[in-house]
């Protein structure tokens, strides 16, 4: 009986890792750009960094901390996440080099209960800043940002909320001209739409719409600097199912949205490796993951589908010649052939 209970408990822990998203399992996280091959393995209370050289650096976390993003800056990395303390959410930041791991202070002045969704802004050599969501409750979040100057944070700046409702899904990138481009979803009383703001020096532009006031949810954007502009991918409800949309920012305006995935395509994430922009997304049913290589305009050039039901977002482990390899936490990598997109 005892043995049975122990076995059932172990099974539960194993199975539950695959039943619900983000609750306990390791997530693999890569920098979305400037990535030389580092992979963050993260779950609540535990994390380690797999360096490009293959070594493993343990990161000491409290039981209530969870790392959610990684940036490669200079010869090291910065990682950020959330500490969930009862009803309060705080930011967690760490600096990792080959020789040491240090905790960084988070920007001062958290008076509200929630700080969520940290987004690191770094260039090839250093961390430039941090953007996040902050507010007294989950429905009253707004975008905040702080500049990292001489090893300390500037006072946080708030991007005024364009709508009274929830702000969510913050994503940010550094453009080639050094400005920051922030995108997120904001609920306008009817549905979520995608908004953006640019940070040019100390100037933070007011939030403006990327998507029209279309009365259907536009959610979970992912932005990535590309060439002289940026590509944006997100999910929009269209005829009853979510579909990936892609739009290009040329420095001043957005192109019309291009439909990318099939009905039920979700959780878009853009990344840049070896000067190639890739898009990874989930297909809801039948469950699978798809990776696409995109051209400068955001048009898909090649695509590969992986019939892997895992809820964990995969990372691109390798792309060479005619195949691409995706990797999931706790599972063998999977290889698939690229297929040209007409």
């Amino acid at each position, binding site marked *: 009986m005892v043995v049975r209970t122990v076995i059932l408990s172990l099974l539960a822990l194993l199975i539950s890792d695959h039943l619900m998203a983000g609750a306990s399992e390791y997530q693999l996280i890569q920098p979305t750009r400037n990535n030389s091959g580092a992979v963050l393995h993260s779950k609540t209370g535990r994390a380690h960094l797999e360096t490009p050289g293959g070594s493993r650096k343990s990161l000491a976390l409290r039981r209530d901390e969870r790392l959610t993003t990684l940036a490669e800056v200079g010869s090291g990395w910065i990682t950020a996440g959330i500490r969930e303390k009862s009803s309060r959410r705080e930011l967690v930041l760490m600096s990792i080099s080959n020789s040491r791991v240090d905790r960084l202070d988070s920007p001062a002045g958290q008076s509200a209960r929630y700080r*969520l969704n940290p987004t690191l802004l770094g260039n090839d050599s250093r961390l430039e800043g941090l953007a996040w969501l902050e507010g007294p409750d989950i429905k009253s979040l707004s975008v905040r940002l702080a500049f990292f100057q001489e090893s300390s944070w500037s006072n946080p700046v708030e991007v005024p909320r364009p709508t009274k409702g929830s702000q*969510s899904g913050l994503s940010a990138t550094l453009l080639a001209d050094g400005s920051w481009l922030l995108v997120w979803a904001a609920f306008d009383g009817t549905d979520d739409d995608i908004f953006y703001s640019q940070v040019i020096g100390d100037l933070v532009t007011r939030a403006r719409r990327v998507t029209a006031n279309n009365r259907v949810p536009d959610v979970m954007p992912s932005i990535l600097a590309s060439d002289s502009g940026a590509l944006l991918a997100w999910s929009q409800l269209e005829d009853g199912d979510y579909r990936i949309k892609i739009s290009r920012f040329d420095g001043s305006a957005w192109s019309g949205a291009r439909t990318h995935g099939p009905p039920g395509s979700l959780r878009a994430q853009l990344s840049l490796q070896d000067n190639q922009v890739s898009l990874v997304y989930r297909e809801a049913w039948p469950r699978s993951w798809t990776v696409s290589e995109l051209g400068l305009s955001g048009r898909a050039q090649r695509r590969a589908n992986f019939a892997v039901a895992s809820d964990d977002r995969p990372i691109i482990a390798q792309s060479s010649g005619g195949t691409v390899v995706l990797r999931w936490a706790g599972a063998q990598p999977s290889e698939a052939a690229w297929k040209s997109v007409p």
Partner: protein
Amino acid sequence: MRVPLLTRGLIGVSCLLAFFTIVGSSLQAQENIVAFGDSITEGLPPFDEDRKGGYPGRLQTILRSSGISSATVLNEGHGSETTSEGLTRINSVISANKAADLFIIMEGTNDVNLVNSGLLSMDTVLANLEGMAGKVRSEAIDVLYATIIPRPPWAKQDSTNFVTFELIFGLRELTSTGRRDLAEPYEILENRELAVYKKYYFKKDPVGHPNSAGFALLAEHFAEKVLGEDTLAPVVSGFSKNRSGQFLANGDQFFALVHESGTGIAKVDSYFTLNGRSIDTDVEGTTRRTSLSYRVTNSDIACGGRITVRTEDRANPANVRNRLVAEYKVEGAQLLKGDVNGDCRVNGFDLGLLGPSFGSKRGDVNYSELADANNDDSVDGDDLAKLARNFGKSSD
């Protein structure tokens, strides 16, 4: 007898059930139910230690033993699914089950993790649920929404249920108008008592899946909804005081919001109590959504403020709940153990208030949190002893 808000099909079944119960014949009604959701609906082992198909399998058994011999409950739970994904999967489930009478939709637990991380808004989660229900209804199939279950204290994310409750509240608001119906798994499991979670949740599961006892409890609740029975008192969805701080003062105002998905709120029998006595509460709203308010007067102020919301529905017998929503101090005063009515004295009046609750446990109609001096979910000799120890004493 509740008036079912469900379905033409279910109304038919309820009438048939009543008829056949009266004439003593076996019931031959057809009932096709689809249980749609995530891993909580899927109910796989090892969480379901008894391997009875989670709540859908047990619901089918209950319905059949209740006389609906041909009842079928199809398990369409799919682990780790979010509402955005469910919105697509439900297309094929509807196509394959166009003869269904009812879809039970219980989904959103996995979305809570996304909302809790700031990645998705709860507004979109609710829009997704509405989208699913719309697709089902477009095939003339009825929908029973269900609140998701609360997270246990050991859950890795949102263990305080702050974010989860945003979804619960949204669903209650969504279903408080129109003809939508709502089952309340959250309410029947939400207790904030570790013992309850230990009883109904799979041990140490960091996600918070029910165990066999939990699946059985869910099945019983869904069966009551399907059969048109109402055993749940109106639920308190929110309480606030206009002035922040822990002290109670003259002129303070309380507000509470009450939702009901069964027979309806008995408004005249729903009110605040302050220190064990009912107070003249302003009650406004419908029988499905009622707001309560009260302004504190000088005569209310004694040694402490223990406020409950007493809710009652129109079922026969009525379902009653007296829920402690707040405790306030009065500046400079101390509330003694056993001072059940907060009048600064422990005397016969307190004994009189404790008496009707003696022997009760949390969940019993006569249970009173005010009399439960040691907060152990039962009113017993220990509470009486605490009162006796202080009998005759006054706070000053």
